[in-house]
């Protein structure tokens, strides 16, 4: 929505720099890709699986002193696990 507004503004304001438009586009893309799937992007936590981020787990205390070990559990989002996602339309 923010991006649509920005495009509109640039059309109306000839001569305005395209930098703010690109900055918002980049920011929205980043946020959509990396934010919790509760916001509608990052489906099935694809971004988190890619970077190895375990997501919104409640407690990491057991892992505080375990260095250089791969965390074995799949990511969870605020709304739950990948397996709980509704089927693709």
């Amino acid at each position, binding site marked *: 929505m923010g991006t649509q507004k920005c495009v509109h503004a640039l059309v109306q304001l000839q001569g305005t720099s395209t930098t703010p438009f690109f900055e918002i586009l980049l920011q929205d893309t980043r*946020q959509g890709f990396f934010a919790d799937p509760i916001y509608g992007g990052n489906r099935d936590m694809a971004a988190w699986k890619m970077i190895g981020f375990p997501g919104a787990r*409640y407690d990491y205390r057991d892992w505080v002193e375990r*260095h250089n070990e791969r965390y074995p559990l799949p990511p969870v989002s605020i709304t739950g696990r990948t397996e709980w996602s509704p089927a693709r339309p």
Partner: protein
Amino acid sequence: MTTKLPPTDVVIIGLGWTGAIVAKSMTDAGLRVVAIERGPWRDTPTDFPPNYAPDELRYAVRHDLFVRPAQTTLTCRNNPSQTALPIRTWGSFLLPNGVGGAGVHWNAQTWRFLPTDFVLKTHLTQRYGAKFLPEDITIQDWGVTYDELEPHYDTFEYLCGTSGIAGNLKGQKQPFGNPWEGPRSRPYPDAGAKAALRTCAMGRGSERNGLQPLPATLRQSVARLHEP
């Protein structure tokens, strides 16, 4: 139209850490207290239940807990030649909003000031000479010393269940704490969260190089709740 509210003994403007502590002391003493805060009402079970995950986008990036720039607009300029413009996104400071003030979103780091911080002008002058400070540097001594504030630091740390490792107990230096801190009358109430510091590569490397890494002093009580 003026709304006339019932009279009260005390009105506190701003119910953050300071206002809340003052309110508790005054109500304990039998006074009627009304506290005024901008923004929404917040309470623990509704706004901060343990089964709720505050996510980075809503809170850290979009500043959900802070004043909206449209709610209280501040202008800023980076140097006197600029025209001050409204701040659209908070950056170098984050204005609290709602009951609890900054206590709602602080990072809970509770370092004490160093004894020299309270007498900075005297300290720098004694250490580097009277000509060290340029004339337009306006720093002053606080007018209150570390030793005078120490009992209050202590009270606050025990109120919060602050965790950390003491570096100086009644003038005696302690291992693994901050060797530069002022004397504490007693240890922290909580030994603190498991610190990866002493086992991680950076901690070990720091010690090998003669440095003394120490855990951050945090109000994140993990051992037990403290009710002084």
